[in-house]
């Protein structure tokens, strides 16, 4: 999964999509995930990184991530797969 090109994310968690003009506020975790996606990290690498940092069951995390990714797709923030 690749984040669309040109997406701008500021340190405050403000995400701006210049192709649509849409903007979003990300919480700290969302910001971390989007940052890793923009760095080209794989979904497995993202899971590993979050599991290292937070106390969360892998299957629970997977569910939340799936929700989050579908939201990114819905808002057209992901390159066509």
């Amino acid at each position: 999964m690749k984040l669309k090109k040109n997406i701008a994310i500021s340190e405050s968690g403000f995400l701006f999509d210049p192709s649509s003009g849409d903007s979003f506020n990300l919480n700290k975790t969302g910001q971390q995930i989007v940052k890793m996606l923009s760095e080209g990290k794989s979904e497995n690498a993202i899971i590993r990184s979050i599991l290292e940092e937070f106390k969360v069951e892998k299957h629970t995390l997977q569910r939340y991530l799936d929700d989050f990714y579908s939201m990114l797709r819905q808002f057209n923030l992901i390159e066509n797969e």
Partner: protein
Amino acid sequence: MEKLKITIAVTGLNNTDNPGPGVPVIRGIRDSEVIEARIIGLAYENLEPGVYMPGLINKTYMIPYPSTGTEAYVERIEEIHQKDPIDLIIPNLDAELYTFMKASSKLSEIGIKTFLPSLEQFEERHKANLDSFGIKYDVKVPKSKTLTGQYEIEKLSDDFEYPVLVKGKFYDAYIAYNPEQVTTHFNKISAKWGIPIIIQEFIKGTEVNVVALGDGMGSTIAAVPMRKQFITDKGKAWSGITISDTELLGITNGLIEKTKWRGAMEIEMIKTNAGEYYLIEINPRIPAWVYLAVGAGQNIPETLVKLAMGKSVTPYKMYQTGKMFIRYSWDLLGDIQEFEQLSIYGELEKQIIST
């Protein structure tokens, strides 16, 4: 570099919640580092806010509505021109464009320039002709039908699925979910703007707009796309943001190239979730949000003036994305003497303090 010193007359000074483009056009010209303009405001009503705003207009003259007839209209322009010579007129309202286009050679004879599309370009992009425009220039348009009488509403369901858009020839657009609502909107719009009424297929998606400028030979001199972020109950943008959309710019360049568009235009399109673009309207003039383009790096009013005056221009290639505008209302205080001047004498001189 010596500045271009000219007198420019501008209409559309109704800076209300349904603003005309006059004020932002003047702001663009005032921002120019190459034009030193004396601005003449042409007002239809004596309470058009632009007339009273500081630092914009040197002198305002009242003019009759275009519905008075081309002759009376042009006569008044000539009268103003004799007193206060005008080099260029930038008309900004839909309802007066036809009159200015028709009178452009007469105006040119007396030394007043305009930079407008041809009557043919003006007519073929009309809402009522959008279907054939789409075919001719290979651009997707929503299915539309022109109604001249209420009796045609009943048969709409043969060709359209509800909801549909009900539009006036120049202004107003409403969404209708059934024939009864079409009738209501038909009556409302036709009472105000006359017939025909245009029925348009409702395309689901996001509205995206472009303000562009064509040189009349097929080249795009400027183009800035914008998405409305907040709209008023009249459907006018109250806030908008410049976006980066190469496909939309490609469609704009294609249209300007094929039509050899001369002058400014606003292209209104719907981008569907599938990424398809449907042309819903072309306004053959500068839109009221043009100052966003100026702020984003393309001073379209300034460039239009240069083109009209036969000066060479370099096409803009860049603009800043993520530039926003937010409109606001502001109680401007004025003196009754100014109102009196305009009401009694039909003219008002204002002091412009240059900075």
